[in-house]
């Protein structure tokens, strides 16, 4: 039962592995970015899960509330989300430039072009 009780961690692990798998198995640069996104999202879940306190409510100071979730991980992950968005933006911009230069966004094709240039 304990294993099922930790289902949120299972979600984190599955997402993380899925993200890594996409990074390893797909050549398309956009798909890679999706993989990276999934991977990063899994970390966000990890942090948010940590902040959850069983039976706690939102961390608002009010009468009658004894237990509340830890707000710090949420705050941290807001920063991480911003970073993730910035990374994605830079990456997509780079992909656009790569497409302009190489006429493809498949990494194996790009590598073929590059190794031809390396030899010359």
């Amino acid at each position: 039962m304990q294993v099922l009780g930790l289902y949120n961690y299972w979600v984190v692990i599955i997402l993380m592995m899925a993200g890594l798998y996409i990074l390893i198995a797909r050549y398309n640069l956009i798909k890679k970015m999706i993989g990276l996104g999934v991977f990063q999202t899994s970390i966000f879940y990890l942090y948010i899960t940590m902040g959850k306190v069983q039976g706690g409510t939102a961390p608002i100071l009010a009468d009658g509330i004894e237990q509340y979730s830890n707000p710090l991980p949420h705050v941290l992950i807001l920063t991480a989300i911003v970073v993730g968005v910035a990374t994605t933006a830079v990456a997509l911009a780079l992909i656009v430039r790569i497409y302009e230069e190489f006429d493809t966004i498949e990494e194996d094709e790009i590598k073929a072009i590059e190794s031809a240039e390396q030899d010359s």
Partner: protein
Amino acid sequence: MSLLAPPFLYLLAAVLIPVLGSRSRALLLLLVPVFGLISLLSYGYGNHLVIPMLGFELTFVRLDKLSQIFGIIFSIAAFLAAIYAWHVDDKIQQMATLVYAGSAIGGVLAGDLITLFLYWEATAVASVFLIWARRTPASYATGMRYLIIQVLSGVLLLAGLLLHYNDTGSIAFDHLGLVSLGTWLIFIGFGIKCAFPLMHNWLQDSYPAATVTGTVVLSAFTTKMAVYALARGYAGTEILIYIGAIMTLFPIFFAEIENDLRRVLAYSLNNQLGFMVVGVGVGTEMALNGTAAHAFCHILYKALLFMSVGAVLYRTGTSKASELGGLYKTMPVTMVCCLVGAASISAFPLFSGFVSKSLILDASVSNGYYIVWFALVVASAGVLSHSGIKIPYFTFFAHDSGKRPAEAPMHMRIAMIITAVLCVFIGVFPGALYALLPFEVDYKPYTVSHVLSQMQLLCFALLAFVFLMRNGLHPPEERGVNLDSDWVYRKLAPGLMPAIVNAIASTVTSAQSSAKDAVVSFTRRVAGISRPGGILSVNWGVNSMVLIVTVMMLIVLLFNFS
């Protein structure tokens, strides 16, 4: 004051070389040894210039009688070489000479192993430029070989000193002895520079490749610094006696048949080093005195011989015995100086070799090393054969080559005459030299029995020469290359791979192609995987990189959870 310590003086002067005019450079080269000598003599015995560096106390000047005599003769040698090289207008050579001489003096003054190592490497790097200064492809290749071996010696010294430091916690350069792996490594490092048998060939390989003046400089420092280092660290190590005995004997044969006179001298240098190494090995006060005295005399007469052969090379463009002969007619001064050098190295009474070599011979015999002593006596006859007779005879007399070069230039003659006078002076008044020796000297070289036995040895050897020449038994001078241990790395090693492949192929015909492929592919594989595009320097894609990350993560987790 510290900047005026002899080694620093030389290095400082070397820095000045690029900005000076041609005449002032030659003058600087001449003056630096003079001031260096004054500076050296102005220090009292003991340790000076102890500078904390790298967490150690480095002693840059350690003056006692042993280092003093080497310091003095190195200064004299640098001075004589400067006169001899007065005509040279080559900043590289002049700078290299100063750095080289300065580091050699620094090396003998070094009071600890780290300082010694620094100068040890500096001599290697500086001296190679004297070879490269010929600026031919051949001298470049030779210089490369020389440099690799010299640097190897330094690396061994470094490795040894680290081990030694680890063992004892001391970097002091005093008596070491063969007591640990560290001291063995240092010993081998010294041995390479001292041209021990089978490590000797860099000497014969490189000295004939240097410039006319460069060889004179080279002959003085590197090997004698190694002799000093051995005397300091390994005096009384018995194995040195036998190493030295072999060193005195085997180069004689090579020298006898070698055609290039500068290489003959290089072999003879090796043979003379043998006497010094025996002296270090015997290790008694008298023997060490003999080593120091012989090093002193040897630097002078070997420089004199290299100068005279160099002058011939300078005027005729060759130093090959087969191309020379009859030069006495137009180069008489050079010839006379050469004869003085030859008489000194052969140890004729009244010449310098006589008063120093006999110290070593007597030391070995009085300690009961009779076989070694006999080897040294035989070697003495051998010295006469190649340096005493061959050099002057085939250059200046023998059959007339028809060459009528002009006499050596004035500055070369001056340098040779001064050196020759010094050789004779030491031979006639040995007391002056003996006063400089590390230990008290109570030795009379000129006893009747001593002079008589030496004269017998030499005169009968001369008689043998006449006998052999008359009967046509003496080997004629022929152009050619004589193989030596350098054959292993110049010919065998490069040729080995195909040779092995062929051997396999001829015996096992069935395995022929596969064996060949294996050897060839192995040699290519290393290059193949390392070249751009090879697996080690491939243009990594994201996929493979992330895969590696994942695998590494697994490994780390595996180790951490185990």
